[in-house]
């Protein structure tokens, strides 16, 4: 029943946006742009002796229109279908010693479903005023300088195997005030039931010499689930919302020709323990076009010892409620163009705290002007119970993207 409601709601949203697009007082028809991509993807993995596969097809349609000189409307819809193994029970992939406490009758509640979806990902109006930009609606929020992790970004969690993949849109009102050539102020507000429960963020940015600086302050109601406690009224797990206040900053620039960046955020929690996140990274391109990047990440919400990983830690990580359960990690990637159309790369991620790691060889190719291909393999090589444990499965992914 819920999926039918969602389907109807999604279609109403699509119709509303198309209608909105059509009534916008655009100057001429050629100012409305329709573009996007189709993205078939295949994932396969050997997990505990079984070969499991999941295939998806994603169609993204973007609409962009300029109304007057100062107003822009942008939106995109995503249509995704899933095939193959679309029901994943998380308990099957976690260490037995921490899942054994879950009663048999509750095991079905830990199924992660991949359901066909149609949804409005972004839909916003941007007003470009003389001294400021105001963006209203579902929009991309990209904060921080990190490549894999962004401590100052309270809105998104990147996939370590695929960190540059686009993030979902967030409903927000955003104000950007540029000051001079390299400075500015950003304020962001996401609407909730009441002011107290809404997310607020303010960011100041500036640039000096070869460096860009930001200082960010934010307040957010952060909702953790207790995946061991079931709420019979909502038919889902109990939630523990609490206020999170964050103060952080970032630096990105150039030191002796090497790219350097760092980002830090301290978080004051209403009930649970305060924590901080820190990243530091470098990158460089050699004359022979080989590119490398290394990024270190610390999150004191993560554990120092993998024996202390709890069931809730794992579930919150899988549900993207927290970015990691491992305290210290290091990520590296090296890429080289073997021809003008093919890049070979190799990335690795190492959890320093529990001595587990994953290796990801990859190949990307520009097949034609508007077709890209990405292939990667992933090998988890840690001991059972560690963050990158081998029982999480070894496999790979093939993804094509056809732009139009």
């Amino acid at each position, binding site marked *: 029943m819920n999926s039918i409601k969602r389907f109807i709601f999604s279609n109403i949203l699509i119709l509303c946006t198309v209608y909105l697009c059509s009534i916008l007082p655009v100057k001429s028809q050629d100012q409305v742009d329709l573009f996007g991509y189709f993205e078939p993807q295949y994932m396969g993995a050997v997990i505990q002796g079984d070969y499991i596969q999941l295939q998806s097809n994603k169609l993204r349609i973007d609409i962009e229109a300029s109304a007057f000189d100062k107003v822009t409307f942008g939106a995109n819809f995503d249509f995704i279908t899933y095939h193959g193994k679309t029901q994943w029970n998380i308990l099957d992939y976690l260490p037995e010693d921490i899942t054994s406490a879950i009663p048999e009758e509750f095991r079905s509640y830990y199924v992660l479903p991949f359901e066909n979806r149609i949804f409005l990902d972004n839909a916003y109006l941007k007003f470009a005023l003389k001294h400021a930009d105001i963006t209203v609606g579902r929009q*991309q929020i990209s904060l921080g300088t990190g490549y894999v992790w962004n401590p100052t970004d309270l809105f998104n969690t990147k996939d370590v195997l695929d960190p*540059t993949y686009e993030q979902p849109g967030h409903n927000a009102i955003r104000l*950007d005030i540029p000051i001079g050539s390299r400075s500015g102020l950003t304020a962001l507000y996401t609407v909730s039931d009441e002011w107290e429960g809404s997310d607020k963020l303010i960011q100041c940015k500036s640039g000096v010499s070869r460096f*860009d600086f930001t200082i960010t302050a934010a307040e957010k109601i952060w909702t953790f689930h207790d995946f061991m406690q079931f709420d019979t009224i909502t038919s889902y797990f109990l939630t523990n919302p609490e206020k999170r206040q964050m103060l952080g900053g970032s630096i990105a620039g*150039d030191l002796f020709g090497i790219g*350097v960046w760092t980002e830090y955020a301290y978080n004051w929690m209403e009930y649970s323990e305060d924590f901080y996140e820190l990243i530091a990274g470098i990158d460089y391109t050699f004359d022979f076009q080989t590119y490398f990047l290394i990024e270190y990440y610390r999150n004191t919400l993560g554990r120092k010892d993998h024996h202390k990983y709890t069931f809730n830690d794992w579930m919150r990580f899988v549900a993207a409620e927290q970015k990691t359960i491992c305290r210290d990690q290091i990520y590296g990637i090296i890429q080289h163009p073997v021809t003008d*159309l093919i890049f070979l790369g190799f990335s690795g991620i190492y959890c320093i705290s529990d001595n587990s790691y994953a290796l990801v060889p990859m190949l990307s190719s520009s097949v034609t002007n508007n077709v890209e291909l990405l292939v990667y393999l992933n090998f988890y090589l840690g001991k059972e119970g560690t963050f990158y444990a081998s029982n999480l499965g070894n496999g790979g992914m093939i993804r094509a993207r056809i732009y139009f």
Partner: protein
Amino acid sequence: MKTQFIMIVISGIMMSTLNGQNLDGGQIINKVNDLINQETIYGKSEMTIITTSGNPRTFLYESWSKNYGEKNLIKYLSPARVKGQATLMLNHADDIWVYFPRTQRVRKLATHAKKQKMEGSDFSYEDMGSGDAFIKDFAAKRLKDERKEGYDCYKLEMIRKPDSDLSYSRMIMWVVKENFVPLVIDYYDKDDPDLILKTLVQSDIKVIDGIPTSMNMVMYNKQDNTHTSMSMQEIKYNIPLKDEMFTERGLKK
């Protein structure tokens, strides 16, 4: 009277020839630099990469330049894969920011990124954005004049200065005597000054807004056996461009 006029014309030609002969490498490259770095430039160009597979890849982009090449902004119009992507280069491409429209993320790149190929072409960001590199990073020496591609040319050897971090150890440049257009440039390897990496050939010189402008250029990559051509579809010189264009806000617009 007639004889006097002929004498004036001949002496004028001789003077200009003598002036040309008197110009040293530094003076010639300064004139080249003045020609290619106007106060402001707007251009719409089509870039076609002939890949190793032999298939062409075509990009259409607009570019704006201000302060004699110190500030540069490039925005892609097509293909769909890169549409909306933009690159801002300030301080002669010492500071680079790239904007990705789908994620609406602006990423600051360090100076090493200048060595990267622009959209897989045979032009690097360094080739596109380092406006005053000819005079800032190289010392020019005049060699024996030569005729090249049908033009009488000055031939210059440009040796990289010790404090420069550019990717080429030296360049050989043929400059059209008549208008100071750098007609052909050979780029040599950073470590092996005898190894030619790339050759740029400019052609179809037209006078636009009083400025001799090459409407076509081809960069031949001698190592990868590929080449990239660029043809100017539209160009305007010394038009008013606001400083706001060359900011993060301008990059996202």
